[in-house]
């Protein structure tokens, strides 16, 4: 897609889609530059008052130890956005890879893969993630893998139904008759034609992953200190819940603006195609 093409597509979005796009871009930028524009080091006890309200020095107040909430939020966003993006990329690669294998492979392979994925999909994702965390712990690498694996079956289901539909079409049959190998069929004939609907699924799954990651961190089972994502920030400050502290509200609202933004964008971008 050219630059003018992207601009035209953006202009064609309804207002909700533009808001969604703006929120998504905002969080991508924050994830990249956040730590550099933070006014205080995220670990420093900048304010003597704990759970202080917003002020000109501390835009989002201070947390349960008197640290600057804005600075911690700017540093935490990187983990939430980055780890979720990485996890969704891994989930989609594995899920779609297995789906392509099922679509072009022999019938028994498809049968075997589909049955196994059906089993995994009947374990609710949060429950599955909890069992995996209990078994393996939650270091940064393991946590990313666990969250990715949790969403492989869902991506597989969508990708398989797309791929199986495509694999029966004429142009794939022609390629097969030409004597092309299965790898070529999967990667050059089937995959390019399922990219668009796949992206909508990846976007939705990204939302689930952000919510799962923040949820795990909120429960103390996700990122471990000193690392802190937005969910950890909510957890740290739960003692401020009874007074409705800004320190608990701000990171929770930040997560919501990211997930709602992605949802609005996908909804606007797929409107008309999906009723």
């Amino acid at each position: 897609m050219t630059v003018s093409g992207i601009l035209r597509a953006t202009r064609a979005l309804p207002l909700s889609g533009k808001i969604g796009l703006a929120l998504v871009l905002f969080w991508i930028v924050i994830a990249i530059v956040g730590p550099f524009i933070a006014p205080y080091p995220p670990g420093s006890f900048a304010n003597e008052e704990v759970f202080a309200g917003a002020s000109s020095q501390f835009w989002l107040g201070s947390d349960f130890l008197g640290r600057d909430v804005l600075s911690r939020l700017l540093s935490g966003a990187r983990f939430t956005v980055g780890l979720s993006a990485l996890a969704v990329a891994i989930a989609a690669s594995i899920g779609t890879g297995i789906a392509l294998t099922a679509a072009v492979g022999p019938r028994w392979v498809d049968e075997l893969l589909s049955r196994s994925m059906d089993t995994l999909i009947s374990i609710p994702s949060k429950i599955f993630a909890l069992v995996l965390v209990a078994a393996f712990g939650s270091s940064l690498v393991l946590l990313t893998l666990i969250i990715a694996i949790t969403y492989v079956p869902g991506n597989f289901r969508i990708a398989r139904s797309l791929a199986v539909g495509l694999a029966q079409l004429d142009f794939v049959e022609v390629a097969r008759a030409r004597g092309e190998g299965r790898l070529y069929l999967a990667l050059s004939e089937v995959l390019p034609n399922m990219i668009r609907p796949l992206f909508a699924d990846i976007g939705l799954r990204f939302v689930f992953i952000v919510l799962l990651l923040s949820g795990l961190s909120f429960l103390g089972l996700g990122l471990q200190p000193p690392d802190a994502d937005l969910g950890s920030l909510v957890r740290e400050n739960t003692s401020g819940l009874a007074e409705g502290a800004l320190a608990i509200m701000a990171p929770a609202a930040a997560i919501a603006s990211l997930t709602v933004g992605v949802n609005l964008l996908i909804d606007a971008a797929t409107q008309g195609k999906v009723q």
Partner: protein
Amino acid sequence: MSGAASASAWRGPAKLVLKRTGLALVTLVLVSAVIFTISGLLPGDAAQELLGQGATPEQIAALRQEMGLDRPAVVRYFEWLRGIALGDPGQSLVANKPVAEIISERLPNTLTLAGLTTLFSVPIAFLIGIASAVSRGKGTDRALNIATLAMVALPEFLVATIAVLVFSVKLLWLPSITIVPQDPTLWEFLRAYAMPVMVLGVGVIAQLGRMIRAAIIAELDRPYVEMARLKGVSQRRLIFRHVLPNAVGPIVNAMALSLSYLFGGAIIVETIFSYPGLASLMVNAVTSRDMPLLQACAMLFCATYLLLVLIADTVAILANPRLRQG
């Protein structure tokens, strides 16, 4: 579902329901194998965990034997599965009580929360679904679409924080943790549950409302609806007498899915309101690595999910007269 249908006409659906039940049971057994395998993969085992770092290899070996951990995994799996099926999933490693006892203390709490949330959410979801379907493409529909789209993506702890801020901090109406008193009056009972039910309801309402809208709209495009419209059937009668009965299948399916979502959402809500339910019990089991308790909780949640889907399937099959022509 006419009373005049002969018994033989129900043979087709009955066979189908039986087949689905069998399939659900097979899936549940496979799920149990997955859960048992994953939770048994951890480096070191329960015996080591219990005795700590300072234990001698002899002590560990003795305890392993006592706990039966020295037997092959397959044997242990089948014994565990038998225990689960008979309602005795073993001994909790941390609480030193039977898992069944711990779960039976918590189960009523979770069922109460789930039941109340269902009673609260389903009618609202129907209202939203019907209201947006009949105004398809118009302002109401678009506004509801954006609203539910946002509600689906809200993390439960944000909804909970806002609810606490509004109802306990500002308005001083409700307590910010859920303590159900002994022998509560109806008023105390409702007050205690109001906050968690509202918070849990937000996601369920949004998700279910969207799926109900989709189910109704799929029916509205069918020829019989146009026929009814041409006959001059009123909008209200059209939706309630013609469309909804035909959309029962997809709607009960949607309800099963949103109710299973409810159990996931309960993990956060029970924790934030310090509510002693099954979901927070499972989180505790993860934190303390109490595997027998964790496995039992996981199985209970998976079984509930499969049961909900099976019930939805059964209702959909029985409600479909085309399967009854046999």
